[in-house]
């Protein structure tokens, strides 16, 4: 298992390199220009100079190489400096966003709390709602609950967040005035009252996002439970005189969770980029919003770095999912 993990880890380096190269070439091919947001009143020569100041004049491969060096060599040094107070990175050029002229990593780190608070929590909430729904739907297959659950989750899944978001805002912010419509990213939670405010501002985006998660995960959970409910070992457990609770919630659930856990793990990377529209609707300026603004501003280093982080998460969580699978299911042992 350990060698398997290490092997996969080592193998993921070339994979990531290749992915980053592919993404870079894609972005090179993509039309668009970081000067698009500069007003038309600024004359073209000036724009050309600004472009050159960003390093856009250099050949693509040189740009890629620079980016690689910055991400893989300089940024880790910055991290080490930050932790140990050393000064390896002094005077070295980090990955700089074209939009903000500041290190991309700093902005990313700034965005992580929002993303985790809202999108991450939404994922957790979604999963927590989905699991009982899935379990009970399977246990009472074709019951009213099951049918209704399917109905509601599918509706939830088929309605886009750019509709549910404003709908919630109109109802809860405008009509009822319960929750703020704009997320305050500077809000600091330090006591009960501020925690309550945080809850209030989180509740709507979390709900919108959780709806999507719930729909998917509960489907998987239901299917996995159904697969296991008729297994022989369930009959054995019953024959031992175990109560239904133990039979379902311990014997069946533990087995059904194996595929579902991996599905959940594979969904984690999406937390960081998959909530673009919801983040936008509620002004939760997280990683997704960062990516989309960077995309529209053609901020190549930012887009590149974010997609790379994203790819990194995907590859890592793929690996984590596989390892989890092996850990949870004693039958599977990777050599």
């Amino acid at each position: 298992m350990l060698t398997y993990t290490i092997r996969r880890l080592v193998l993921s380096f070339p994979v990531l390199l290749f992915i980053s190269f592919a993404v870079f070439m894609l972005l090179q091919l993509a039309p668009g220009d970081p000067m698009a947001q500069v007003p038309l009143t600024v004359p073209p020569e000036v724009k050309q100079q600004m472009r050159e100041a960003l390093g856009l004049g250099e050949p693509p491969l040189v740009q890629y190489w620079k980016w690689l060096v910055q991400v893989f060599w300089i940024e880790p040094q910055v991290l080490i400096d930050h932790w140990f107070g050393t000064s390896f990175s002094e005077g070295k050029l980090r990955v700089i966003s074209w939009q903000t002229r500041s290190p991309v990593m700093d902005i990313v780190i700034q965005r992580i709390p929002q993303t985790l608070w809202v999108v991450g929590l939404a994922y957790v909430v979604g999963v927590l709602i989905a699991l009982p729904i899935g379990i009970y739907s399977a246990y009472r297959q074709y019951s009213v609950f099951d049918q209704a659950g399917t109905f509601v989750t599918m509706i939830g899944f088929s309605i886009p967040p750019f509709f549910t978001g404003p709908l919630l805002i109109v109802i809860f912010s405008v009509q009822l005035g319960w929750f703020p419509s704009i997320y305050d990213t500077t809000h600091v939670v330090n006591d009960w009252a501020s925690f309550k405010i945080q809850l209030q501002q989180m509740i709507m985006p979390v709900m919108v996002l959780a709806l999507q998660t719930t729909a998917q995960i509960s489907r998987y959970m239901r299917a996995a439970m159904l697969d296991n409910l008729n297994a022989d070992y369930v009959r054995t457990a019953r024959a031992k005189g175990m109560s239904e609770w133990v039979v379902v919630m311990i014997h069946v659930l533990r087995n059904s969770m194996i595929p579902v856990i991996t599905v959940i793990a594979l969904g984690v990377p999406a937390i960081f980029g998959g909530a673009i529209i919801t983040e936008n609707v509620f002004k939760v300026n997280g990683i997704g919003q960062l990516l989309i603004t960077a995309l529209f501003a053609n901020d190549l280093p930012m887009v590149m770095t974010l997609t790379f982080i994203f790819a990194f998460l995907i590859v890592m969580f793929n690996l984590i999912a596989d390892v989890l699978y092996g850990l949870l299911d004693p039958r599977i042992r990777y050599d």
Partner: protein
Amino acid sequence: MTEPVPASPKAIEALRDAGPEAPPRSQWRDVWDQFRKHKGAMFGGAFLVFITLAVLFGPWVWTLDPQQLDIRNKDLRPIWTALWDSSAKTAIGHPFGTDNLGRDQLAQMIYGGRASMAVGWAAMVLSLFIGTAIGVIAGYFRKLDGILMRMTDLFLSLPILPLLLVAVTLFRQPLRANFGPEGGMFILIVTVIGITSWMPTARIVRGDVLALKEREFVLAARSIGTTPWKIIQRHLLPNVLSPIMVSATLGLATAIITESALSFLGVGFPSDFPTWGKMLADAVPRMVDFPERVMLPGIAISLTVLSVNYLGDGLRDALDPRLRGR
């Protein structure tokens, strides 16, 4: 060493295997009979047929041009609002009302449905095709597994927006020349949605194929000289149908919504080309005053997705001979 007891005629009957009693029937009859038992599937199927017919033949029945502006008749409410709100501006000529430029909503729903259904189905079929192909090949041919799965990772990381922009830059002109501006854009959007959404299907199919490959009937097929390609076709594909059906359901919904999200982000079809998703996105700012404008496309999308879901459930049961017998 007990020599057999003298035979009695009943013993033959006793020893004969109990076979199926019901007379054999044609396969499709059977499928249909089983399908008919699934109420949800019947409902879903009926609704899908209805909506498909409506968007296909609607334009002959409801001949208004969806792009026709009628600025004097803008912001009409659907006629049923007159039931409770007698002051609402309604017109018989526009049963679903009109939008802020006076375009007929019913006509828009019909044409929008055409586009959404076409995008949904086409992108879903494309992504299923790619996903299944990659999944099956990765699962069946061990050597290709690693590389194909890493490719899946790559595609998972590709951001869809730049991809679409690249595709538009590179292919809009040739496609426009061959398929017209809307046809060309349609192909682009479908392709981009298709190639950015096959990955989950591929993963699931691969997992199933890995398990199926170990089943004896695949070994049996090899031993009777079935070529790998035929094994995939005859033995593996029919047996991974059920996960594919689930992917298909989710895929249709995702495709319709992705198209609308693209419109929402401003990189979709030409602005005068209605789709359900775009109608929904455009109506969101006015949803307080004109709730029907979000409800109509919203309900259409949800019902379509729901009926495909139920239809998928029903088909899965009906096509699986093991379930069909019961």
